[in-house]
């Protein structure tokens, strides 16, 4: 995409790109037509558009006044053609991979991975293997055409309807890309399904839409990481992830988020968990200017369980506002939330969570733990938990701590020969460990490296 196209939304529309200020029914309709979508999807888009236009930008929580929706461009077709193997990737993309430190092992050993480059999945591998198990794994765009019935059943229906909030509606109107992952009854996918996607275009909002369905007794782990280089203009990422966890099914979603520091990362993630099912969210947040991320688990069937693990590091100028939303809608459901955050520079890490126990949901228990570490003078943190208990037969607890690195820990490690920087790095790593151990090793190593480097910078 050339600079001119970005500035001139009208001109570039035919190439699949426009700006939000030009967003209207006509634009959405032609987008849908270009993609060759069935009518019901077009209707969904148009309905979403009307919701988007009617809803105000949320004013609770983080200040979003810096977000200039009108100036954002969206829908970019990939610059590269579909490739068959990783070695066929363009040199500059490979360079980006190197810069991002994607481990070699990752690149060569990706189970059913797709690499999302500029809004469209361009590279998918080992799909056949998954297909043999009856697993559907493809880009959402493709799924709309190939499995319309399935998609229609799950896409923005009872998990994240267009009316959920403004940015969900925006996604519904102009979504592009994302993954459709369907695991049939009783199928256990042994290797994690991974997607590494990148946004690499100035001022581009990315509106990918992912749906994961694990039927009864199925299990699957899905990993995505995203990263973007530094831009001049502010961008928006407003993705949606809808997850359906069937009876006794298990789903784990791991996201390593490292958007460039000028992106508004306003994502919607929600899971509906049926009887005895288990949902695990692992969220590692490093990047973005503002992140508002509150993965929700609706525990809809008896005995359902959710576990949320978050680690985030808010650096200079960043506001990372994360939290878990747990709805105990059925008896004997349980949830565990663990959040560890670090604020450095002028960064601000916030935990904003909600636990709700519905009337009649007896025998539920919820436990939330969040700890915050402040490592620079300008940094700040906050914890805003809310527990709504409408059923007296519940056990709901919340615990949190905040403070700096203990001097005695620093001194102890220094007396063992570590420099102050090294000691800080070690302590921070240890602080995050309960969450990072949930992340696949190669990512965790990388993540720790980034954090340690950042901690060193932050202190100096």
């Amino acid at each position, binding site marked *: 995409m050339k600079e001119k196209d970005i500035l001139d939304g009208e001109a570039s529309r035919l190439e699949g790109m426009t700006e939000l200020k030009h967003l209207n029914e006509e634009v959405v309709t032609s987008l849908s037509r270009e993609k060759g979508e069935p009518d019901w999807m077009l209707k969904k888009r148009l309905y979403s558009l009307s919701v988007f236009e009617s809803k105000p930008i949320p004013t609770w929580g983080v200040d979003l006044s810096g977000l200039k929706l009108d100036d954002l461009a969206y829908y970019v077709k990939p610059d590269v053609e579909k490739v068959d193997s990783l070695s066929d990737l363009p040199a500059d993309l490979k360079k980006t991979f190197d810069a991002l430190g994607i481990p070699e092992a990752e690149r060569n050993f990706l189970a059913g991975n797709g690499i999302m480059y500029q809004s469209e999945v361009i590279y998918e591998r080992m799909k056949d293997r998954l297909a043999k198990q009856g697993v559907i794994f493809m880009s959402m765009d493709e799924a709309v055409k190939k499995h319309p019935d399935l998609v229609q059943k799950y896409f923005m229906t009872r998990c994240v309807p267009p009316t959920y909030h403004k940015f969900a509606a925006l996604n519904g109107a102009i979504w592009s890309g994302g993954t459709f992952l369907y695991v049939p009854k009783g199928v256990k996918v042994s290797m994690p399904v991974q997607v590494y996607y990148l946004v690499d275009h100035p001022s581009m909002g990315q509106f990918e839409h992912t749906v994961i369905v694990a039927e009864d007794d199925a299990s699957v782990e899905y990993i995505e990481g995203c990263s973007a280089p530094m831009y001049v203009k502010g961008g928006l990422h407003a993705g949606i992830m809808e997850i359906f966890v069937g009876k006794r099914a298990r789903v784990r979603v791991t996201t390593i988020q490292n958007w460039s520091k000028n992106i508004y990362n306003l994502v919607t993630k929600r899971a509906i968990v049926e009887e005895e099912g288990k949902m695990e969210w692992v969220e590692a947040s490093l990047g973005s200017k503002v992140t508002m991320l509150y993965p929700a688990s609706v525990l809809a069937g008896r005995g359902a369980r959710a576990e949320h693990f978050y680690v985030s590091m808010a650096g200079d100028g960043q506001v990372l506002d994360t939290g878990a939303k747990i709805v105990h809608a059925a008896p004997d459901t349980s949830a565990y939330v663990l959040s560890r955050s670090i604020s450095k520079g002028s960064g601000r890490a916030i935990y904003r969570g909600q636990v709700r126990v519905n*009337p009649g949901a007896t025998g539920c228990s919820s436990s939330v733990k969040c700890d*915050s570490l*402040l*490592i*620079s*003078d300008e*940094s*700040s*943190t*906050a*914890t*805003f*938990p*809310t*527990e*709504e*208990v*409408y*059923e*007296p*037969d*519940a*056990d*709901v*607890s*919340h*615990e*949190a*701590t*905040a*403070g*700096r690195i203990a001097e005695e820990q620093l001194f102890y490690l220094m007396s063992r020969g570590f420099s102050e920087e090294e000691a800080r790095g070690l302590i921070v790593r240890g602080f995050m460990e309960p969450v990072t151990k949930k992340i696949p090793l190669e990512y965790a190593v990388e993540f720790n490296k980034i954090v340690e480097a950042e901690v060193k910078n932050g202190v100096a």
Partner: protein
Amino acid sequence: MSEYEAFRLMAESRYRSLSPLKWKEMKDGRLIYREELKYSDFAMDFPEGFEIPDEGGFEVKGEGGFEATPLLSKVHDDWVARQLQRLSEDKVELLSLAGWKHGYLIEVKSGETATLKISLVDRLPFRLVFRVRKGASLSATVVTPSGAQHEENVKLLASRIDVTCEPGSNVDIAYKAGSSPVEFIGFSADLGISSSLKLDALHVAGSYGRHFGDVNVGQGARLSARVAELIPKSSFGDSMFNVRHASQSESEVEMRAAVLGKGVIRGLTSIPKGAVGSNANLQERVIMVGEEAKAITSPSLDIYEKEVQARHGSWSGRIGDRELFYLESRGLSEKEAISLLIRGFFSPFERIVPLEEVLEGIVLGRDLGERSEDKT
């Protein structure tokens, strides 16, 4: 026009000028809580047709170096006027400014020690302003009448206690408020350098009760607060306690609630930039009793300074089976065991007011009926 009328007019006009900010304004004579909290299950109708009583009296007894002056005679005093206007832009708080007629300014002279007991003889909206001068010590209890929580004749009581602890002073305040059908009690304190405040606050929600605390903990000062809320069946209670820290200050806040009706327990501890060396601990503990109990808890921390230690925690749930079983195995009925456990929960407040008086008819009576009948 008297000073009092002027105050009241000013407050009323401010009250009326406020758009529905946090509280939905009277609609057909009803105030609905929905606006602020957005918790649909908590929408609760504000009782209709209330009146603000203004007849009745106070009893201030005590010893030591203090001086109690009726507040109305002091409204010309700049300092007092400032205290009287210490209100947030909150409609309910403004009601308290509009509604009071009875109040005292209580001043403890520098270096002196005083012990006080203040009793409300009648149910009245009141204001108490404490000024504890440098190095002075005060120990005071304030008690409002106990009684039924739900009455036919709805009265609105909105009262405030404001405390100024000057540097080096030592203050211990305990109050029990509430029990009236619609009652709001506000508490504020400013802690000067190296002063200390120990607070035991007990609020019993009537049909509709609100308890609000706001404390500035000054440099090197120490706050130790226990804030308890008893919410009987068919009652709504909202308890909120905010603390702001200055450098080297300490706060230990424990909010407790026994909820048989609907309860909201919110604490917020803020540590602004520069409040180095502050140490904060905010704990919320809510026990839910009976089948109707509903509770919202929200212990929040907001920290802009790294040289601090802050903790918070909350727990809400039913009375532990283990404790119940233990007591039952000692021969108590479930009802007796529960009431004993609730008593234990509120035992720190025994020093203010006999707990039987507070708990009687609430816990032992009808409110527990259902649950224990179910089991026995």
